[in-house]
């Protein structure tokens, strides 16, 4: 396994080229290019904010709902796109797999990384709303909670969270990509599963509001729930409470375990990709 890892290092330029290929192909044909990928989350943000603040203005409506929502939606989009992408990464590159030898793990990893870059590029939009809200909302009914949402020192946790999520998505991607080679119905199941997963992850609601007996279950079975809860701590609740380092560490460990399991599984079966794809 160590030899495999060393070999992967030799192919790091392949990884670079695959990521660049992904990004270039994605944005090559549209004039607005990357900005289209922002349109979707911003539209969703507008709709959900309208629904939860105007249509359903309960006591439980979150102040600054649009930031509450957007800071969870963006990492979720990274999760959803890279899950669908890694799922097809081996099968969709069958012509390569059958003709050239290269470390196959490069394909799912490159999908996760190119979607990560996409996510990183969308973060300025989130910061923009965070800053905009702080200046514009002076004197608004949300004044009291205004300090909730601002850019501050807790953001130093952000890189660790991003690495955690990347590790999680790679581990999951290894599993799904390999499974899809042998059982093509995997992709159908995942498509259905993704919409369920969206609602089972605290994106439109708050993880802290989940009923006690389910909260732990949710955190353990769904690493995305922990990851999103962490994001929300640093982006949304950042001044009322500081992020819990132990929770972040636990999430990282859980994701690393999944990554290792996924990698081992992938390595175990990748030898037969050449004949099964």
């Amino acid at each position: 396994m160590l030899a495999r890892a060393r070999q992967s290092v030799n192919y790091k330029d392949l990884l670079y080229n695959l990521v660049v290929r992904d990004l270039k192909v994605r944005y090559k044909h549209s004039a607005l290019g990357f900005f289209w990928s922002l349109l979707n989350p911003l539209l969703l943000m507008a709709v959900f904010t309208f629904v939860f603040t105007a249509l359903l203005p309960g006591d439980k409506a979150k102040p600054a709902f649009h930031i509450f929502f957007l800071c969870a939606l963006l990492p979720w989009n990274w999760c959803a796109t890279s899950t669908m992408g890694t799922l097809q990464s081996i099968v969709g590159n069958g012509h390569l797999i059958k003709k050239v030898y290269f470390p196959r793990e490069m394909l799912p990893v490159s999908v996760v990384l190119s979607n990560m870059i996409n996510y990183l590029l969308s973060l300025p939009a989130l910061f923009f709303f965070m800053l905009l809200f702080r200046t514009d909302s002076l004197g608004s009914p949300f004044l009291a909670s205004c300090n909730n949402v601002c850019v501050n020192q807790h953001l130093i946790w952000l890189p660790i969270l991003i690495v955690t999520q990347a590790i999680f998505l790679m581990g999951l991607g290894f599993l799904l990509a390999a499974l899809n080679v042998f059982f093509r119905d995997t992709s159908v199941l995942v498509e259905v599963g993704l919409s369920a997963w969206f609602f089972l992850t605290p994106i439109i609601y708050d993880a802290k509001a989940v009923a006690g007996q389910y909260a732990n279950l949710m955190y353990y079975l769904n690493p995305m729930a922990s990851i999103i809860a962490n994001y929300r701590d640093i982006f949304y609740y950042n001044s009322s409470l500081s992020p819990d380092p132990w929770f972040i560490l636990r999430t990282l460990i859980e994701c690393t375990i999944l990554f290792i399991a996924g990698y081992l599984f992938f390595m175990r079966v990748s030898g037969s990709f050449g004949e099964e794809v």
Partner: protein
Amino acid sequence: MAKLIEASDSGIGNREAIPPTPDSQFPIPDRRSPTPDPKPPTKVIKFSHTSKRFTLHHERPRSFQEMVVNVFGLRNPSKRGVAMPRPAKEEFWAVRDVNFSIYAGEAVGIIGENGSGKSTTLKLISRIIEPTSGGVSVRGKVSALLELGTGFHPDLTGRENIFLNGSLLGISRKEMAQRYEDIVEFAEMGEFIDTPIKHYSSGMVMRLGFAVAINVDPDILLTDEVLAVGDEAFQRKCLEYIAGLRRRGVTIIFVSHALDAVRGLCNRVIWLDHGRVVADGPSGEVIDRYLTYENERHAHRLRTAQRGGGSQEGSVARPTPVDTSGKNSGDDEPVGALRGQAPAHEVIAPGTRWTTGDVTLTGVTFLDGRGEETTLAHTGAPFTIRIHYAAHQKLEGPVFGLALFTENGTHLNGPNTRFAGLEIPSIEGKGYVDYTVDELPLLAGRYDVTVAVTGPDMADMYDHQHRAYSFVVQPTPGLAERWGLLHMPAHWSFHPNRESGVKNREESDYSPQLPIPDSRFPTPDS
């Protein structure tokens, strides 16, 4: 590079005169591991008891459960029947217990029929698939020309694809940048290099793919019938380049059905049949053995087919084409085929036969210079094709003819008794006609023979058997010529320190300064 290619194409160096040790067959001076080198050559590829089993899934009725059980090796044979009734699978061994070692600098051809395991062997070497049992060890950088242009993305430009493809082969961006110019030049891309690949012609894509694959400086180059595609000029360029790589000491594994190309490029050939090694040795010997074997098998198949057809033919009295494919125009085509004009609208399958039943060509035998029957001919030696007939009634002025084809269907000639001025008054009963070549000009290979007998006007097709027989030509010791199809009786001469060519050209060439007789177009001088 041009100089090196010349040396190989002119066939300098008599293969037969040099002892057949694999490394000395091509007397190439600048090889990295020449024979006199006291060091043993490095083993770069080793197959030890290597086997590969493929499972044919007819419908893939597979479940997650089976997958999980298989992967983690938990399957318990005693419980298997209880756990789930497994679907019947068909298994076959693409490669079975294969052993060989390939040394640095060798050029090894792998030959065999379709399904003999050639491509599987290449894929095992390139690690695309893994052996079911046994070991495959490979040392050095492998570049596989399995399919040109693999991995090109249509939306990316040529330049971007060069780097992407290079990194697929494990080359760093820095190294690729150094080779970039060479690649663009070899591929003859010019200003198109910054155009997306989807606007390229297929020829350009292939050129680019080939240029990348060979410019990554491989230690081992694998090729699998890549040269079967593309125009002839490109194929030649590729073959020449591969020959050049070989001289630089690159190990080459060459899989092809084009035995001529294998013979020309490789010093060693491995013949696979049904996944097993049948022969492994100097290319000439192995290819000749293979051709002989193939020829015998081919002849046997045809004999079997003819026996089946012959029994039917007995019951058919009126003129009927035996093969339905010739039914519509059965009378015209065979004459055309005999004259060497293959019908344009369809390819006649070897073994196709038309007959009116008046005369039966009962067989063809091949005779050597001593008049003994053989299926092996030798370049430059006498050779006779004997056509046996049985006329069921008396027929006036028949014409016997034949046609020679190469193995892949190129029509070589179509002589007949009429063209040769041999008038046969009549035939009745059994007999034979001989076609004798005093010095067979054909080079090594397998050739097919069409035989026919027609009426006096060459329109009534009494019996026509298209490419129904074949013989093998083997190289003659002492005759080194081996490129192409023919050995023409000719001689070379050498004239140093003379420039007779220049003088001749001055005398014979048209000179534009000749006075123009027509006064309507006066020269500037006048």
